[in-house]
């Protein structure tokens, strides 16, 4: 029998292929991505990470086992450390202050995605929360590996790619995949179905997040 997470990944094969084929992602490696779209993306990603950290903190609070609580509490902190490191690198180079970043409105797709994560994190059981947060971890790892092979002529993009293709990041993702398989091990089918549904929904949001950056999406009113 295949691992539960293998089944999850197979269920989003089409979405993942669409992500790799997306002009934003392709543009990172062939250098055709306009830098203002990349900047838009990194700023929205910083806002995203603040909420992602809160979801992971809720995952820690809901963990049925102590080592998992420790793991997610640690990841919640790391998400904020990564967010802060963006300020010290990319944002400083672009002359963007922490106040300017905090005052930037969430783009529609970002607000929808982070709100979805928070609602699931708050009122659904632990395993459903795993289904919702896993695509962000996993897709970035897979995208990172893919992009690393190709590399980028733009040093800015190359630096960004290196973060997600690192062995350190791989270990983080593997740990969460393992927790998901263990947490789902003896779940009745009805509860597994809910995990699958969240996994697909947030994978869609992952594609939409790249797409929003590519279009530099904003509110119509």
């Amino acid at each position: 029998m295949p691992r539960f997470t293998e089944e999850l990944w197979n269920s989003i094969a089409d979405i993942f292929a669409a992500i790799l084929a997306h002009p934003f992602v392709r543009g990172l490696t062939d250098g055709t991505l306009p830098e203002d779209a990349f900047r838009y993306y990194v700023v929205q990603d910083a806002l995203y990470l603040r909420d992602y950290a809160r979801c992971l903190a809720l995952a820690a609070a809901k963990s049925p086992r102590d080592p998992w609580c420790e793991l997610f509490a640690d990841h919640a902190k790391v998400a904020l450390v990564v967010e802060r490191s963006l300020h010290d690198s990319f944002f400083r180079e672009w002359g963007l202050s922490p106040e300017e970043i905090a005052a930037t409105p969430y783009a529609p797709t970002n607000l929808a995605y982070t709100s979805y994560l928070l609602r699931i994190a708050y009122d659904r059981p632990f395993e459903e929360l795993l289904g919702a947060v896993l695509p962000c971890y996993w897709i970035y790892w897979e995208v990172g590996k893919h992009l690393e092979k190709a590399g980028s002529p733009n040093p800015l993009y190359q630096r960004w790619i290196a973060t997600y293709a690192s062995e350190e990041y791989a270990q983080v993702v593997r740990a969460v995949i393992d927790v998901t398989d263990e947490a789902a091990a003896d779940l009745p089918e009805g509860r597994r179905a809910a995990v699958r549904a969240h996994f697909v929904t947030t994978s869609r949001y992952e594609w939409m997040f790249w797409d929003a950056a590519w279009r530099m999406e904003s509110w119509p009113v």
Partner: protein
Amino acid sequence: MSTTLLDELLTEARPIWEAMTAHPFLRELATGRLPRERFDFWVQQDYRFVQDGLRFLALLIARAPDEELRRGLLDAAVAFRNELTIFEDYARQRGLQLEVEPTPVCLGYTSFLLATAATGSLGETLAVLWGAEKAYYDAWSTVRQALGLAEPYARWIENWTSPQFAAWVDWLGAQLVRWSSSAEYPALRRAFLATARYEYLFWDMVYTGTTWPI
């Protein structure tokens, strides 16, 4: 009671509010030119919205700090339940499926409401509820002005423009003023404006039929 806060919020949201109440969906509804399939699509999506709205209210009731707020919200929860019946009766007559997938705008809006109730302050949460209800009162009032209580919309028009509904919106505004601290005004403002934008986007989504891009 000071209504300055409410006035400030509405003043700041005015351009969004005007775009919302003048949206072609509402204009065509009010002039009888809206294709019935468009209205049916609204019925399906708004039904999903009210279902999650009920969960939002339940979260807020659980967090209400006093009996006055708790009981007022409980009455509203009963009214929300009755709203669902209007949709169900209509769907039965039309042979319309109600368990549809929410569109990105519908899911985005309901997730935003639930995320605010889950992790936002009491002031923010009341601001989004007041915003959503006030928006519906204003939107459906424009329809009532043009159509009166015309079929097939009569029960919805009546529901969202009745004196009882107007009183509920006012009561909610008063609760928002009563329970928010000035420290949370910036967050509350952002939450209110996002609600107004989602109200506009919701009409726009049902009008254009915008659904998942992937």
